[in-house]
Structure formats: C-alpha cells, structure tokens
C-alpha cells in the first residue's frame, strides 16, 4: 500500500476519457436509462445502441435466453434510426461531459456511409464504433466482420466520410481474428473493439423449438470471457492501434485481466443488466487495483502479460 493516487485519464484512439471504462453498445440504451443509478459524467465513455440509416423494428420474440453464466440475444438491432437518434437521443446526452460513441450498423455499405455522414455532421458525437459483427443480421448471407476484404472495403468507405475517431468492432466468430484486425487497421481504423457476441443457440426440449425466434443469437456474459481475453491478446500482438476489450466483464478484476491481455480500455455489457452500477464499480475496482500495486496509471498494465 502507498499513497499514490492513480490517474485513470487516458486517450484511446483519439478519444479523451476520464477513465478507461465504457459501456458496451446495446447494453446501456442511450444513457438516460441509467441516470437513476449512475452519474454519466463518471464514465469513460457512453457507447449507445447500434444505429442504422432508418429505424428498424427488430426481430420477433422471444429475443433473449439465459444460459450457464451467459445470455443469448437476438434483438435484431431494433433502433430509432440515425435521424431519430440525432433528434431525440443525442440532445439529452449533450447535457453530460462524457464522450458519446455511436455504434453503427447496416446491411449495405451505403447505409453505413449514410449514417456516418449524418453523425459526422451532428454535434456531440465523440467517435463512431463500426459494428461489422452483429451475429443477428445477414448481410448477403455473411456479415462483413468475417471477411478481410469486406472489412477493408467498409472501413475505408466509412473512413472517407468522417474525421471522427473510428473504432471497428470485431466478431469472435472467425478462424483468425488477427486477419480481420489487421484489415481494419490497414483500412484506417483508430481502434478495435474486441469482441462482439459469440454465435450460439438454445432449444426448448418440450416444444422442440429454438429458445430464440431468430433460432441463433449472440452469447454474452462471463461464459465468453475466456474467449474474449484470448482474442484481445491475439489482436494485441497483431496490431498497433488500441483495443477496447469486452466480453463478460463483471468487475474491476475482470477489467484488469483484459488490460493485461492488451486492452487499452474496456467496455461493460451484460453486467449492466445484473448490476446497474456495474460500469462505475469497474472504475472503482481498477482504481483499487492500481493503488494496491502502487501504479500511477493503467498504461503500464496494458499488454503486460508475462508469458512463461
């Protein structure tokens, strides 16, 4: 123990944050839903639900299912659309002194570009997170995030439309995540979000129907943490842009694991559903760890894994 007061402030991919803890897209709404529990100003960044060019209705029900230490979701990107977001959701977030990162999605490259242009012109967007990995969509039968060429094309396109920091969110459902990571880096991404949900499924044995109307869905929560950590470490060793680590982070200790594996920042997802204060608890947990280990900042921790 000693008296160094660690500073959690960091700059990740050009986004200046008070601490390295974000909320994961789709698990924190548009921020307003959590103000009874959290001072948004204390977060590193708020990442909002995936936005598309026009409002999407989403998938039919059931949409979620609990699995051992995890949950499956197939929401189908129900969202208000980029115009609705800018008109109805963004103004509220401008009341806070916290970077707002907008997660965007689409079925065609053109849709991504349209959303990007509108967000680039809007006031109060700190960065764009490109979701090329939503497991509940079928962009020509396969999502962008599993093909390095499609990734390159899409990221280059979006890069051309904005000067905002650009994060690219990678899918775990690939043979070699470093290939996609390098494609995104090469195409101009400023940072990588690792990982989105793993594709999974569950069945009701009495009705013999899938537990999700969409049949398959994205697995999140502690169950996928080992997979997420492995991928963060792989990507860390493959690229030189910063990584936002996520997948099953429930507390500060989980977050520290991601940092040691190579994450410059982390995002808290499913944990928000179980504990609405989870993201701030993670901030506090990280602070305590740094204090306990006499570290002034988190930077020395990033990628500090000692391999035997």
């Amino acid at each position, binding site marked *: 123990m000693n008296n160094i007061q660690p500073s959690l402030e960091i700059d990740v991919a050009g986004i200046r944050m008070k601490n390295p803890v974000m909320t994961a897209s789709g698990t924190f*709404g548009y921020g307003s839903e959590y103000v009874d529990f959290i001072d948004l100003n204390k977060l590193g960044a708020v990442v909002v639900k995936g936005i598309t060019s026009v409002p999407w209705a989403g998938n039919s*029900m059931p949409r979620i299912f609990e699995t051992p230490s995890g949950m499956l979701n197939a929401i189908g990107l129900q969202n208000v659309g980029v115009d609705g977001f800018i008109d109805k959701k963004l103004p509220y977030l401008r009341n806070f002194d916290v970077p707002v990162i907008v997660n965007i999605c689409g079925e065609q490259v053109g849709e991504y570009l349209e959303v990007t242009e509108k967000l680039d012109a809007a006031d109060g967007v700190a960065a764009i997170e490109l979701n090329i990995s939503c497991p509940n969509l079928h962009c020509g039968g396969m999502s962008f995030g599993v093909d390095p060429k499609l990734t390159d094309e899409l990221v280059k396109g979006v890069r051309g439309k904005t000067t905002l920091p650009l994060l690219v969110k990678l899918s775990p459902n690939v043979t070699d995540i470093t290939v996609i990571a390098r494609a995104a880096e090469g195409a101009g991404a400023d940072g990588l979000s690792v990982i989105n949900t793993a594709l999974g499924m569950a069945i009701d044995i009495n009705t013999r129907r899938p537990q999700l109307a969409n049949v398959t869905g994205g697995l999140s929560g502690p169950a996928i943490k080992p997979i997420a950590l492995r991928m963060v470490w792989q990507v860390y060793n493959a690229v030189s842009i910063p990584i936002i680590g996520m997948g099953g982070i429930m507390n500060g200790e989980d977050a520290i694991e991601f940092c040691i594996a190579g994450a410059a920042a982390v995002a808290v997802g499913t944990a928000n*559903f179980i504990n609405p204060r989870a993201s701030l608890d993670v901030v506090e947990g990280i602070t305590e760890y740094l204090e306990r280990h006499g570290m002034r900042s988190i930077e020395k921790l990033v990628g500090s894994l000692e391999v035997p």
Partner: protein
Amino acid sequence: MLVPTKKFDLPTEVISNELVAENHYLLRCSCPEIAAGALPGQFIHVLIPQGSGLLLRRPFTIYTVEGDEITMLYQLIGEGTNVLSSLKRSDSIRVLGPLGNTFEISPAPDPAVIVGGGAGIASLMLLAAALRENGAHALGLVGSMNSARLLSVEDLEAIGIETYIATDDGSVGHHGFVTELLMEILETHEMKNPQIYACGPDGMLRVVTKIALDYRIPAQLAMENRMGCALGVCLGCVCKVRMPSGGFEYQRVCTEGPVFNAEDIIW
C-alpha cells in the same frame, strides 16, 4: 400510462418468505424507497443471491406495500424461484424498482373486473387496493389449477372485494376456466362503465382479449416476458403492439408496459 418513477437498486434482507399455497411463496422485505413510489402493476427485478449460479435477475410484481415493506407473491417455476424459495429471514437480496408503468383507473370503472390466472393475480392486488381506496366497485375473479394452489382470495375479500373462483379441477368454485367465469359475470351483472384488468398465462389473456372485444369492454393486461435489464435498454422483453398508424411496434414490457391495452396487443 407511462410513469417515470425514480428507480432504486437496494440491498435488503428477507423479513419472511412463506409457503402460502402449494408451489407459491410470499416474500417480504423492507425497501422504503421502493415502497414509497410503488404504483399498481409495477414490479421489481430481484437479484438472486451471489453464488446461486444464475446470471440474470428475475422480475416479480409488487404484491403489497405496507409501510416500508413490500411483498412479492411468486410461483415456483425454475431454478431462480427455487433458490428464492430457499431464502430465510435475514438472507440478503437486491431489489431493483419500482419498474414499469401502471394501470389506468380513471374515470372510475364501474365495476372493475379483475381477472387473475395462477400467479397472475399477484399483479392485480395493488390495483385492487387502489380501486377500493378510490371507492370504485370491483369484482375479483381468481383462476387456479385446484384449491391447493388458490391464491389471494382472502386478501381480496379482506379489502372488501367480491371474489369469484374458478379451478381447473372443480375442487372449489366454478369448474373450468376463469375466462368462463368472466363471460358469466359479464352476462349476469349490471355494468355501467366496466373495465377489465387481467394478468395470467398467455392463453388466458388471449381469451380475455377476445371477450373484451366481443363485449366492447376496455381491458388492460399486465404482460410478462423474459427480462434482461428491466430498465429498457436490452430490448429483450418486447411485445408486439398495434400502432394507431396501422403498423406495429415492438414495445418493452419493462418500460412501456407491463400494462397494455388488450386491443393493442398483437399475439
């Protein structure tokens, strides 16, 4: 009916947790902030204690409010309610609430016909109390598998609500569905400004909706669905709601609901 109540996530202790009917328990705990704001139909999202191996919380309607204390009346369904039922006095739980919207009760219905199937009646108890406080005339219709599982009849009668019973096996009251009882009562009672309030299994709610439409009586349903966050962010709990425009929208049971107008639900 959308009410932006301030929400709390409170650590608290179980005061009591008793078997009140076969397979059904009543859990009491002290949550002053939630008790203060709770409206009829609203619910809490309960964190099953650490180490239970379950990830997500479980939603339950606030059954009664007495001073600082709230109760929930719940049925054993799966692992979560099983762990809940094993909790003893002074065991810790966390309670998030009050959540969701509330029932519309003005202009005062005459009568209010409350229809509960199984544990569904739990969602209607605070409503019944509020109606009585407002001096509204209310009838209680309680459906159950059998007499051993019958819930809430005494609680309803204690606040002066005329209560009718239906059981699947005829062990007490009407032998058959509570929806049959509903039809019978609509046929036999004088009604000025009737309103149906219902909660129960999907099958029952569909029949209630049909009856309400047939008789042109407005009906409000307390809906249930699997829940993730219960705060409106995961979009996991939606139901399909008819829009005035003619289309539909997926609305969140935890936020736009749990109470919906029966005619708006697309099953």
